[in-house]
């Protein structure tokens, strides 16, 4: 299932498919270790337009709603 990051439920493992937007946004996300094809797990979902907390490469990263909607992800069966 392909969706965007802010729609994922808690504890969902997923793979980043694509990052929409200009190279500034890709750069910002890449700096903190978020790239296409990377595996991540949602630790806290972005309810009510709030930010999403993910675990990626062993670190936790908080991503604001505005940025989460630009991250296209595919939900995987297990991490």
């Amino acid at each position, binding site marked *: 299932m392909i969706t965007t990051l802010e729609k994922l439920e808690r504890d969902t493992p997923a793979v980043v498919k694509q990052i929409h937007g200009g*190279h500034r946004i890709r*750069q910002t996300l890449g700096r903190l270790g978020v790239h296409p094809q990377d595996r991540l797990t949602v630790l806290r979902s972005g309810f009510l337009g709030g930010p999403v907390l993910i675990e990626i490469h062993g670190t936790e990263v908080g991503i604001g709603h505005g940025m989460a909607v630009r991250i296209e992800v595919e939900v995987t069966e297990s991490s």
Partner: protein
Amino acid sequence: MKIVLVGQPNCGKSALFNSVAGYKTIVSNFPGTTVDFITSRVNLNGASFTLVDLPGIYSLSTSETEELLARHYLIHEKPDLVINIMDASVLSRSLELTLELLELRVPLVVCLNMMDEAARKGVEIDVEHLSRDLGIPVVPTIATRGQGVPELFQTAIETAKRGKTGKIFFLSLDVERVVSELAGILGQGTAGKMKLPPRILAIKLLEKDEEFEKRVGEIQPGLISDIERLRRNLAECHGRPSDVVVSSERHSLAMNLFEHVAKVKARTGKSLRDQVDKYRMHPYLGYVFLAGILFTFFWLVFSVGKHVEEPLLALFETFAEYLPNHLSDESFFFNILNGLIQGFSGGIGIVLPYLIPFLLGLALLEDIGYLPRAAFLMDSIMHSIGLHGKSIIPFVLSYGCNVPAIMGVRIMERARDRFITSVLVTLIPCAARTTIIFALVAFYLGPIQALGLYVLNIVVIAGAGKILSHYMPDLSPGMILEMPSYKVPEWSTVVRKIWFRLREFIVIAWPLLIVGSVILSVLEFLHLSEPINGILSPFTSGLLGLPPEVGITLIFGILRKELTIIMLVQALGTSNFDAVMTAQQMMVFTVFSLFYIPCLATLGMLRSTIGNRGMLFTLFFNTAVGTLMALAFRGLYAVL
């Protein structure tokens, strides 16, 4: 010899720096604490060198000011050696920066820090293997305990003497072909003028680095079309923009390297952090937790402060009472001495009892790693006033003192966010302004009114935020913030941090406090406060309906907010305020003091953070807000 520390934010860089260089930098568990370059002469086991602590950088590709400054330093200052510090527990991500640093062709040593944290996370690293793969020495350390630090610097000095640079990692064949074509073109002078190896310049240009592209355009405008051609070339072959192609290549190189040298064991059971975060980061309970923590924090600070302040002040009062027996209270000397005692006791009795517990609480929250979590939780709320979660940190800091808060504003990437946050932060009552609220409103009018003032303050800040962000709309996609692991604070770090911040108060603020008190005494003796009050009286008594004597206190409040109450005692000739001021006057005075011109130190900090115009804007904006609010209260009391 010059050795530079480079690493991603929160990798323990400052802790390492402090362990050898004494306490010159503030270490905390929040990404991006080092805001300026801090340099120290170090003598270690007979060797002497200059150590430079650069701001944390995630990558050499960046558009953030702080990271650009660090990059500029690395390229132009030609260090003899770079120590690349990494958080061993996030090795795969850290290696991406290492791959970029290798391209700079400077002698390099890797410091694999936080080995204890990596072990806790189940990450096992083959240090020898990593060193062989990178072609440079790798030294494991636990900097907070000083473990491995002597070995690290010994290795660093030896490596610098040999001038040993590491391996270059090649990208896949077709990408490498484009990189070398561009590097070839850049190698004919342009890269040399920019003091960069042609290869890294080529890579960064393919990654669409704006700063480097601008520089190349200035040196050799004809090259821009070549760069664009090669970018298109790469994009067409891969079906993705050239920056994505290059950065994914580096990313997969780092991932491969990581898999080569590290084993990740499945963690048995949930860690303490998971357990704790389940509640702290919970959609609803998280806010209850946050409110609870902040409330407990301030309650502790003020209850401790109050218990220490009262006996201390009583002590000084008795001392002051003895004075007239020995000196005539009409003499010039008496006035000076009285001013000295007032200033001295103002520092000891009013500020220190609150400042020390506050700094202790703040240092603990910082070092445990709770502040970034607070930022995360507050993101959607801060969005409603046009800011991001990150600005909660300066906001919270500001209740202690506006000065460190404005230093904290520098963690924000965008000038717009820095500007709005700086202006709003100065509207928050710092510990000094809190003493005004406590001494006048809480003491004479009741705690409910005092609490009401805090609520009103937040409402006014939200309103001001709305207005400012209306004129400076937010165009960015939002926050992205790393959550560092929770750590047990090291007492030595906490104590040193408190001392470091306290020292600023003792050497800068306290002398000013004493000098200010003495100056006021002299002004009184020479009867100069009256002309000053006279000049201000159309505003103070005409517009705001206050006793004209308060004019001078407002002037001194600009010097240091701590002076306001002390000066009010002096100016009115009593600390029994309700004998000389009505409830309305106390409220109006407090409200105006809450918002008007920030203190001198804050203004200085504002100037260096948001520039002269920003500082002047804040000055007028805050005075306007203060006047409007004070007038509103005057009107409100008149109606009631």
